[in-house]
């Protein structure tokens, strides 16, 4: 057991890969076995990850479950893993959503089941690796390879213009990542110039002293990489396409986990590595974030396609998270991180429901639906809960996160926070209006007449997510108490550089700004 706990992160990373090797030996024709085995293995993986939660010490910001091995000593890169309160929950979210999306795809994925489950498990390996690595090169390795399985999932099992969307997804994120890599290598070289050591250890790179002008340029480089992934407003165009064409499982993972990497990247790399630039550029980033909130919300209102609507609502929600993160007060950052989880849970659930509707009616157009409430009461109830969670109804998870973000940012950015708060109202508009058109009204589409309610497998698929919505909504303390020390430490790291920032402000006559 000691061994298990000590190397838990490595086990979590490589267990899905080992499962892939097992699955490779199963005959392609035996689709039932492949599906069940993959689901069971991903459930085992989730149970393993619960051990992380159990053995995690909540009252410290220090990295836990640390593993360190030499990897490429010439570059000072090491196999360096460790998690803090933030990556803990993101890893849990990853394992949960992988399990959920594997069982959700029993009906949707009919061809090439073997390839599908293998790609999902490979994807899981790389997602967990990205969250767990504390070495920049290792992080980048996991981060970029993740694109490839996702690309295949969209391109092979997608609908409509799937190839276009998949290629667009890869090229967008790849260009961003490469520019980000440029920035990261530059910091690595700067650290070498200052200390004479090559190291990719993020904890050491934090101590690199970078002149403020350079910080701003590097921040832009890193910003491009992470912002495309989130995606922040002007870089979001790949997201609706990818989401719309991806299979349900792909959408769930994409919205639930992949979008989180951008924010995680800001949290772990961009902001602590370049604190001066972060303090200077925070207002601009927040403005971009608030534009994203409004833009995403307004565009969602006019969407005719269900998946596109949920996809644009993601843009809006991610804008919120950016606002909270860059407002840089303890409460708002806490809220941001919690909202990351919430967004993964609720948007994942929304995509699952859209997938269920699509499997039954073979359409995603809102106009084609109507009157489902009469035919499928369970689906309607659970869908309603997810919609309300996404809107931010008190008692459900979305409220806690959004509320924390808003009160946290209000002190520093009053006007922008007020504008952003209107995003919640818009969310109510587009989601409830959508819900009304899809679920109520009369039945116009003859296909709806034979609409079936959710079966047991589908209920199992969404139930963990629904339970989590209530849990976080009513009792967020176990989450917040683990996130909080990390966030406090994170803000401490940035504000150490606060005095430089104030100096610059004084110099520019902006001390009141």
């Amino acid at each position, binding site marked *: 057991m000691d061994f298990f706990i000590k190397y838990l992160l490595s086990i979590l990373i490589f267990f899905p890969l080992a499962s892939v090797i097992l699955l490779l030996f199963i005959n392609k024709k035996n689709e039932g076995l492949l599906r069940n085995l993959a689901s069971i293995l991903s459930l085992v993986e989730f149970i393993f990850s619960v051990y992380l939660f159990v053995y995690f010490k909540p009252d410290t910001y220090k990295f836990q479950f640390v593993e360190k091995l*030499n*990897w*490429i*000593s*010439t*570059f000072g890169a090491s196999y360096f893993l460790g998690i803090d309160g933030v990556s803990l929950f993101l890893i849990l979210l990853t394992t949960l959503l992988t399990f959920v999306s594997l069982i959700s795809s029993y009906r*949707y*994925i*009919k*061809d*090439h089941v073997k390839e599908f489950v293998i790609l999902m498990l490979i994807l899981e390996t790389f997602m967990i690796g990205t969250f767990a690595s504390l070495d920049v*090169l290792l992080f*980048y*390795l*996991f*981060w*970029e*390879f993740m*694109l*490839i399985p996702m*690309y*295949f999932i969209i*391109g*092979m*099992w*997608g*609908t*409509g213009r*799937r*190839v276009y969307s*998949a*290629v667009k997804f*890869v*090229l967008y994120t*790849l*260009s961003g990542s*490469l*520019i980000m*890599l*440029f920035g990261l*290598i*530059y910091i*690595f*070289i700067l650290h*070498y110039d200052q200390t004479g050591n090559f190291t990719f250890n993020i904890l050491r790179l934090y101590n690199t002293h970078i002149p403020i002008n350079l910080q701003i340029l590097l921040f832009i480089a890193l910003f491009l990489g992470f912002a495309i992934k989130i995606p922040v407003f002007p870089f979001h165009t790949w997201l609706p396409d990818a989401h719309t*064409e991806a*299979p349900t499982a792909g959408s769930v993972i994409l919205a639930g986990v992949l979008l989180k990497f951008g924010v995680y990247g800001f949290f772990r790399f961009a902001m602590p590595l370049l604190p001066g630039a972060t303090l200077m550029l925070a207002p601009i980033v927040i403005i971009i974030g608030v534009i994203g909130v409004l833009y995403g919300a307004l565009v969602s209102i006019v969407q005719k396609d269900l998946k596109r609507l949920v996809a644009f609502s993601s843009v809006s929600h991610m804008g919120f998270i950016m606002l909270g993160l860059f407002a840089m007060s303890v409460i708002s950052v806490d809220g941001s991180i919690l909202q990351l989880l919430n967004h993964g849970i609720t948007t994942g659930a929304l995509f699952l429901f859209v997938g269920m509707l699509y*499997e039954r009616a*073979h359409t995603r157009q809102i106009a084609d639906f109507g009157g489902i409430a009469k035919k499928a009461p369970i689906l309607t109830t659970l869908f309603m809960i997810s919609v309300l969670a996404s809107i931010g109804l008190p008692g459900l998870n979305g409220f806690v996160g959004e509320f924390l973000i808003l009160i946290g940012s209000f002190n520093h950015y009053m006007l922008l926070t007020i504008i952003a708060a209107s995003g919640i109202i818009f969310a109510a508009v587009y989601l409830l209006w959508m819900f009304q058109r899809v679920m109520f009204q009369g039945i116009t589409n003859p296909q709806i007449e034979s609409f079936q309610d959710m079966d047991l497998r589908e209920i199992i698929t969404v139930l963990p997510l629904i339970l989590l919505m209530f849990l976080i909504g009513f009792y967020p303390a176990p989450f917040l108490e683990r996130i909080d020390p990390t966030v406090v430490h994170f803000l401490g790291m940035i504000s150490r550089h606060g005095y430089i920032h104030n100096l610059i402000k004084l110099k520019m006559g902006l001390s009141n700004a």
Partner: protein
Amino acid sequence: MLDVSQVYNINFLEEGMLSVIPETIIIIFAFIVLFLTFFEKLSKSNNPYYLSLISIGFSMLYILMLSGRTIDGFYGSIVFNKFSVFLFIGILFSGFLTILMSNNYINNFEVPLPEYYSLILFGVASMMLLVSSNNLIMVFLSIEFMSITAYILTGYLKGNARSTEAALKYFVLGTFASAFLIFGSVFIYAATGHLNLYNIHFFIVNIASKGFVNFDNIKIYLAIGLILFLVGLAFKMSLFPFHAWTPDAYDGAPTPVTNFMATGVKIAAFAIFLRIFSLIYNFNIMNFNNILWLLAILSMSFGNIAALMSSNIKRLLAYSSIAQAGYILVGIIGGGYYGYSGTLFYLLAYVFMTAGAFAVVIIFENFDLMSLDIKKYSGIGYKYPIVAAAMTFFLLSLAGIPVTSGFMGKFYVFSAAIKSRYNLLVLIAFINSAFAAFYYIKIIVQMYMPEKEELIASSNGAQRGGMSGGTNLDKPSGDFGIVNGKINEGLMIVIFICLFFTLLMGIYPQLFINFAHNSISSLWNV
């Protein structure tokens, strides 16, 4: 390092012979293979093929025995040191993989076999001589030797118009390059009075430090000579303005020979350029880095744009090799220990990923000799899962996606260039590699995600309604030229070797980095 002659108490000539043992082995075997032609029965079988493989193994054995030593041979015109060892191994691997993948391919044509293998062996030997040569005349001779075997091999498919045309183009342009090379050597000789690279090096160091009276005159001669020499070498490295032969020659040549040119010739040309550059270019005669900077950017941009436009897989790989040459050059520009060892690492990584990709091309070419169009790759991902997965991996490696050697190589050379503060260059290179990913992905799209119209609905039985997206992934029928055939085991060995090294160099590159570091250390061991 111990001087071998002191240890074994051998004389001058013996030491000279010792320095070329790996090459000699190859040449002897090349002649043996050639003589097999006299015996009709022997030459018809697979004997030449096996003999060539054995010769490469022997040569590798001798290299391992001699590695770590520094041997000067033939009055200093040949130097065997750690630098050569690294590149010998790269070249021998390139030759080994080429021979392995030739067997199945070349039997499809009515051409004499023993000569083919012996030419490949001669080519390998010439490249090894080129890498270890340390004298301008020796450089010229071995480049000529290498080029002539390459010309013959390019046009080896007698009666095939494209092959002949390619050979002719390659020959004419190649001769032109040789002229530049010899002209450049003349100028360098005129300026310095030496042909030996070490002597030229010391001469330049001396005049640079002491400040000769007529240094300016010498400088002009030297600059002209070095520029002309650079042009000649850039030809062989297929850098942008001198690349014109590359697409045609690569396209027209038999595919194993294309692989040989893309890997072996490129390694040898870059290696000798690296040696010459580090010895005699890198002084304040003029700023060659600016010229290389331009060449690198032009090569990668042009290569990528042209590759994007091409629909023939061999042409695409040819253009992509021009782009890759640009990336490799970034390492040389970056310079220093870091940059040069990065260049070597990238060259070795390049051998495996390119050879792997060409092996897959050959597999599908063997099934149908015309299936070089990328469109014909439609749907093979499901028909040949292992081969297609391997191809995907090699293409991702060429695109520089992590977990592959291509990423590590790019990371290595680019970070070296950032270390020397060539920021703009690296930024352009990064944008280029993002751009390049598009055409590599285009092939993967064809393999795994064929469009519906491109498929003839096969009688797959389960037409599962138009519901899920997966349904349009039905397997393509045999009409696309890929008939079921047995894949030659030689090709599979090539693919597995390449996969193994591409993965290993991507996951745990430390071994190769140490090796590259070691070999670079001997570069300055004048």
